[in-house]
């Protein structure tokens, strides 16, 4: 077999119109000449779009946290951490393996003690985790952008505080960054250990039942009271309330949320009660991003009501028709037990059944973390984080440094600090900010660059094909294995009308595709369409009620989207790597959720 390689980082051609993109990201995120010797893959799971300058923090900080967790806290025997590079606005990553056997042995001893402590005290530590993460959320919510008036308030003087408010500009901005960093450390605190428990059970099942569907393992361990379902449940409650209060007529497919809200305001007491219920549900349950919390522009339901209001008409209609939309948790719990018991009974020996019980038990113990951490970290905390950064952007706009609040996201976080220092100095000296002349052309240029880079198709991987890919993090978190690499290599040999991925939710269905490159467009999807998107986010759950099937470039069978799709009984194929490139809106496609295959039956426009 000849040695095969993906394009080398140094061979990537410049994207026309995107010259100078490098300045958007820190120097340590750039490919180096020696990086040509290593295998990198595109982390399209977390970074399906071009990363704006500020959003570079959503790779910088998570990788400082996850690497510290595996390399320095728990001493994973075979892996250190993950290195990342950004090229043409896309994030590529590689794991740093520990290859020396003696070193592995030393690390193993430490690992057993450290990881053993966490597993042995899991429930107690997890309670502590929930308290810590809620405290962090309270902290980020308490961040205030100081007001810089003509004079500081008299109380600053009378209380003897001793420092003026421009100091707080830096301190509060730092708090945002520091809290974000801390949040990511807590995010990774249980992550690898939790996924480890899941993967060990998954591999056992695959060995004992080689033909078991990938989603079956998730079905045996999925929890019933899952935080990530709460936003959807709240919507259903609001829909029921609308029916009760005789407001159903206001919820019509395709309506603008602002107009619905205005109309509710004119419906007297009933309208007011519904609006109050909406406000109550919003905090915290509408703090779910339409993405996965890695881009500032993936707004939350709270920021933009399009998604919840796109789902409400259908719920209202169903409830008015007498359909019970509450999750049948009792039936789901019974089904979960039945499936687990049946597989258990199929095992050949008492020993295997005992091992099965251990692994399943451990898996169910860790699963509440796996299922819930995203809501707390990527959604609730991160929604608040970006809101605070936007508020600093508003201050910069108010002070004339930027043209608009959102322009702050075209500056790197260290550049934002510079701009804030400019404001602090100007306020202190009575002079004027100098940033307008400096930053506004940079923002304008970066907007053009982001647009130009959006047209680039990133190769799934770069560098030489590795002999063996067995890093536990890469495998557990990204699902990237030797087989994945082979699939990427074989892409061009595939039939161009077929897209293969993971069978995430069973069933076969045909429908018209709607390709959503930008997740903010999720509100545009129509009843019965097949959703094709880079990555499916848990907050899309409500929309799943109206579509026929879901197809994603990225994702595993235990992703929330997959779990939700199964609950809706809707076929889903995830992790195709390329559906959004190969399928076009309007194409007629067949989604085979049993086998993980999407077939383009007819191209858009071809009768």
């Amino acid at each position, binding site marked *: 077999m000849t040695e095969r390689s993906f394009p080398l980082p140094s061979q990537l051609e410049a994207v026309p119109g995107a010259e100078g993109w490098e300045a958007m990201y820190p120097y340590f995120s750039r490919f180096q000449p020696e990086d040509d010797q290593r295998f990198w893959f595109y982390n399209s799971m977390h970074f399906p779009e071009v990363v704006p300058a500020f959003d570079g923090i959503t790779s910088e900080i998570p990788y400082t946290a996850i690497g510290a967790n595996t390399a320095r806290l728990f001493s*994973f025997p075979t892996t250190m951490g993950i290195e990342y590079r950004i090229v043409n606005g896309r994030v590529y990553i590689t794991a740093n393996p520990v290859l020396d056997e003696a070193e592995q042995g030393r690390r193993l001893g430490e690992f057993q003690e450290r*990881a053993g402590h966490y597993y042995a005290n899991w429930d107690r530590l997890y309670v502590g985790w929930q308290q810590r993460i809620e405290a962090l959320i309270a902290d980020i919510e308490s961040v205030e952008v100081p007001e810089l008036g003509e004079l500081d308030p008299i109380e600053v003087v009378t209380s003897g505080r001793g420092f003026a408010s421009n100091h707080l500009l830096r301190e509060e901005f730092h708090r945002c960054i520091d809290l974000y960093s801390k949040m990511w450390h807590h995010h990774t605190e249980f992550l690898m250990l939790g996924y480890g428990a899941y993967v060990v059970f998954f591999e*056992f099942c695959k060995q004992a039942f080689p033909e078991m*569907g990938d989603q079956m393992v998730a079905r045996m361990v999925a929890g019933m009271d899952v935080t990530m379902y709460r936003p959807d449940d709240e919507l259903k409650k609001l829909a029921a309330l609308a029916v009760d209060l005789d407001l159903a007529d206001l919820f019509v497919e395709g309506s603008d949320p602002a107009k619905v809200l205005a109309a509710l305001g004119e419906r007297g007491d009933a309208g007011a009660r519904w609006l109050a219920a909406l406000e109550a549900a919003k905090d915290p349950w509408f703090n779910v991003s339409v993405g996965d919390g890695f881009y500032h522009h993936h707004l939350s339901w709270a920021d933009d009501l399009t998604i919840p209001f796109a789902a409400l008409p259908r719920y209202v209609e169903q409830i008015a028709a007498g359909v019970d939309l509450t999750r049948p948790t009792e039936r789901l719990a019974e089904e979960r037990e039945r499936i687990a018991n*049946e597989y258990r009974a199929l095992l050949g020996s008492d*020993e295997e059944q005992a091992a099965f019980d*251990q*692994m399943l038990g*451990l898996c169910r113990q860790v699963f509440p973390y796996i299922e819930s951490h995203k809501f707390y970290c990527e959604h609730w905390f991160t929604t608040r984080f970006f809101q605070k950064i936007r508020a600093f952007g508003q201050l910069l706009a108010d002070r004339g440094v930027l043209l608009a609040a959102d322009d702050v996201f075209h500056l790197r976080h260290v550049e934002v600090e510079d701009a804030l220092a400019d404001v602090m100095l100007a306020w202190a000296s009575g002079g004027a900010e100098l940033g307008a002349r400096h930053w506004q052309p940079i923002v304008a240029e970066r907007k053009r660059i982001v647009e130009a880079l959006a047209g680039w198709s990133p190769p799934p991987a770069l560098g030489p094909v590795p002999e063996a890919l067995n890093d536990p993090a890469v495998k557990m978190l990204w699902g990237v294995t030797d087989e994945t690499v082979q699939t990427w290599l074989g892409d061009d040999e595939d039939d161009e009308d077929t897209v293969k991925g993971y069978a995430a939710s*069973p069933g076969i269905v045909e429908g018209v595709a709607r390709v959503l490159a930008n997740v903010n467009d999720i509100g545009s999807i129509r009843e019965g369409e097949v959703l094709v998107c880079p990555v499916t986010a848990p907050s899309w759950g409500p929309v799943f009620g109206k579509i026929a099937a879901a197809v994603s470039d990225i994702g595993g069978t235990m992703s929330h989207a997959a779990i939700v799709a199964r609950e809706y009984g809707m076929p889903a194929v995830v992790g195709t790597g390329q559906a959004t490139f190969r399928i076009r809106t309007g194409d007629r496609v067949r989604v085979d959720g049993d086998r993980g295959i999407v077939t383009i039956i007819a191209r858009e426009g071809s009768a």
Partner: protein
Amino acid sequence: MTTTRPVLRVADVGIEDVPSVGGKGASLGELMRAGIRVPEGFVVTTAAFRSAVSALDLGPRVTALDPADTAAVAAACADLRAVVESAPLPGAVVEAVTSAYGELCAGAGNERLPVAVRSSATSEDSADASFAGLQDTYLWVRGGDEVVEQVRRCWASLYSVESVTYRLRRNIPEEDLAMAVVVQRMVDSLSSGVMFTRSPLTGDRSVIAIDASWGLGSAVVSGDVTPDSFVVSKVTGEITKRTVATKTRWHQPDTGGQGVIESDVPGQLQDVPSISDAEIAELVAIARKVEAHYGSPQDIEWAVSRSAPVGENVLLLQSRPETVWAEKDRARVAAPTARAFDHVLNMLGGKRPSEG
């Protein structure tokens, strides 16, 4: 205790009757008792065999042969078969077979009811599987005389060159030789096939693998056609793999007379799935019942009747233990560890789960 009766109804026998009715006959009775839909029929017992064949005292002529001398064996076998097929039958045997057939016909309201005549071996050792393959099945047999004739041909198949050589090489005593014959109402199969209650490819016990094609099952068993194939999860009933093949050949009864005609499947049927999802679901239910009844993976032949009403049209023709993977099951997949999380520590430390 073996019976002395020459014929027993399938409905009246069970697994304890293997010495009298052979494995196939006993299994059918057993399944009928377990409430599984099996075509009715009767078994010509080993008692009948003894009075008709053992009485001919052919044993010494077999043991005198040298299995290496193929020409001599071939000549002797042709002779022996002719003897079995032409020697006058004991009246009691003929009478019992024709009257049991008559009863079957009367029950079905068809005086020339088509039946399948199949040998049913009594040996239970591991040679059984290969031995069974050497014996015969006659499909679409009609009329009492013809049934008696085919029963004799089954008996005579014990004197085929393959059978005789097999016994000689393994020193199987001729005195132990016995065979039962199952006579079963023929199913006018719209489609039929085989199924395994575990994956034939991976041994996975959580799935049922179904092969299906148009017409009689002999087309599938003989490999005359590439069948449709389905893999179904036992646990959820979901069809996890579905391969619809182009089915070019089918076996159909010669409606005008005896036996089976092999021909091309009409074009419009070739690429159409030969069983519906509802029929698959029913097969799965049958497979699970049979497997639970025997407590081990099964290899099952089945058919979907053309004439029986929906709900009663899926029938089991025979079931036997699956043997290929049974051996491999002994390889242990995993063992419990001192603490549950040791499984994870082992994996992340670079060990596979089976290394404990």
